[in-house]
């Protein structure tokens, strides 16, 4: 129904390049999430797809047809704004039916479509209220209802949950995923919250400074981050980055030196690493891939222990100066101020070169 293709799409505001040559294909009925820190160009990219912002360079295709010059309402896409953008002087029913009414649809048809959307979103008892008499979550539903009523081919969401409280956010997250399944429509969802991205997306597009840092499924991004930025952005608590030196790159075994007396060896990857022996590298290890041992390659003093119930986060001040976060369910062993030793999971972790690009991953996929 709606397949979107972006080819080298870019956006200039005066001399400032907000979006830089984005190549992306969104398949029909896919749920794609754009994620990245504030100011990375997510909204701009979404607005270009919506048609609210001109595309400065590159091309957009919707279902194979070039859409750069197609006006927003002719693209078959509906947008849900962060601020909800409800019409304050109209009732819920008025808001949802406005587009159809303006298009001259018959009253009966409008009423039917509004009823249908209200039923899906459980808004039936609120149809005659004004937006200001609704809670944040209800307004959000109305905004989504307004989009549904137009039966669009695709939905565009710009941080739709960021104005809701935490509990409601989790609930709406699930509801949106269900809605996606029920409507079988393409959805593009913008958020700065990597948890939202991980939980909702079929595929995630990580943006950094207007550029695509990586595109992939949540698990791909988690286990095989293409660069330090993605590695650091996806996952909470953050991936640990350890500076190291590649001391020996043999055909069977690669050896890293974390500190003068501490080395780490692992099987060499199939195409040998494209770095010279002695080169500086960064080893990325997720907090859950570290464990406490009698004697391991990492040593340090326990700084903070956070008990979260299901798991415990231990912040270890490492002897070389940095802090390493360990995620463990082992409550008995660690105390603050204790000297501990850590071992790495034998087949998890990523290695990055000095430019920040991934050299290879030890991962299940």
């Amino acid at each position, binding site marked *: 129904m709606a397949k979107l293709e972006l080819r080298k799409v870019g956006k200039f505001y005066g001399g400032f390049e907000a979006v830089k040559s984005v190549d992306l294909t969104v398949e029909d009925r896919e749920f794609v999430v754009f994620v990245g820190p504030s100011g990375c160009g997510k909204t701009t990219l979404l607005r270009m797809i*919506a*048609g*609210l912002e001109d595309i400065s360079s590159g091309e957009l295709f919707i279902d194979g047809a070039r859409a750069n010059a197609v006006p*927003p*309402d*002719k693209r078959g*896409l*509906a*947008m849900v*704004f*962060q*601020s*909800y*953008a*409800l*019409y*304050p*002087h109209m009732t819920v029913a008025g808001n949802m039916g*406005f*587009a159809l009414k*303006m*298009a001259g649809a018959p009253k009966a048809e409008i009423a039917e479509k509004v009823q249908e959307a209200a039923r899906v979103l459980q808004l039936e008892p609120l149809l005659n209220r004004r937006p200001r008499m609704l809670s944040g979550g209800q307004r959000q539903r109305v905004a989504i209802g*307004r989009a549904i009523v*137009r039966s669009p081919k695709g939905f565009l969401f710009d941080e739709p949950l960021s104005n809701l409280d935490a509990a409601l956010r989790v609930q709406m997250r699930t509801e949106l995923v269900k809605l996606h399944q029920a409507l079988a429509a393409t959805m593009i969802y913008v958020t700065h919250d990597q948890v939202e991205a991980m939980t909702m997306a079929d595929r995630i597009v990580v943006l950094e400074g207007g550029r695509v840092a990586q595109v992939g499924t949540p698990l791909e991004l988690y286990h095989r981050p293409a660069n330090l930025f993605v590695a650091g952005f996806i996952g909470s608590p953050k991936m640990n980055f350890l500076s190291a030196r590649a001391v020996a790159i043999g055909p069977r075994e690669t050896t890293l030196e974390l500190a003068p007396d501490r080395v780490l060896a692992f099987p060499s990857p199939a195409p040998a690493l494209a770095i010279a022996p002695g080169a500086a590298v960064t080893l990325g290890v997720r907090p859950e891939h570290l464990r406490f041992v009698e004697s391991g390659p990492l040593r340090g003093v326990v700084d903070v222990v956070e008990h979260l119930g299901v798991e415990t986060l231990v912040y270890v001040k490492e002897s070389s100066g940095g802090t390493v976060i360990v995620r463990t369910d082992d409550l008995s062993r660690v105390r603050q101020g204790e000297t501990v030793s850590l071992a790495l999971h034998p087949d998890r972790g990523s290695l990055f070169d000095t430019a920040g690009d991934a050299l290879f991953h030890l991962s299940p996929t």
Partner: protein
Amino acid sequence: MNEQRASLPGTIAAWVVAFLMVFPILWMAITAFKTESEAIAIPPLLLFRPVLSSFAAALAQSGYLHFALNSIIVSLGSTVLAILIAFPAAYAMAFQPGRHTQDLLVWMLSTKMLPPVGVLVPIYLIFRDTGLLDTVEGLVIVDTLMNLPIVVWMLFSFFRDIPRDILEAAHMDGVGPRKQMMHLLLPLASPGIASAALLAIILSWNEAFWSINLTAAHAGTLAAYIARYSAPEGLFWAKLSAASVLAVAPILLFGCLAQRRLVRGLTVGAVK
């Protein structure tokens, strides 16, 4: 907010200043109810039997109703016209600003800093050659142009308080600029439009310069009526006062009725 009580001396001082400022108008109103001989009595009379004879004389002699009707037509006509022109202009400036929109706004306001007398000759000549001298239409045009910058500015600031997202949502829904203005801006900005209209009516009603210089007996407004009245009848203070009261009374009454709306409209941006 600082909930301090005003001090007594402060209150008294404020009342004194207010009284001094209102005094001339008050004196005019009092004089209007005197006879001519009472009006020029020295020392001035504070106690007298109020009479309406001066009003009667002013009304009988000078075609007050004719001028009043002109005032109504000109102020309402120019206001409607100014709103009709300013509405789409402010829409474009607020929601689709170009590179020079800001300059344009400043320039429009700057035209209000030019003394009107500076353009009197060209405008007079244009009016003479186009046959607009001493016509109500001509005055409507001049008052419209005179108020346009202020009305555009007011509407512009009201529109800017309307979230852009709302119009963009409508845009996505296939609602074009004209329908956006009709169905969204008009209802949402109606308090602002009302304030702008009230101000324009008052400014136009009180406008004297163009009215005096571009009209004669036919299209004169109440401002011209007083100006003309004062020359030959200048010595008849009671009658002149009565005429003046008749000229300002309608707009004063109107202003009082509209006061709350006007104040709210003018401060809405500042309060938010």
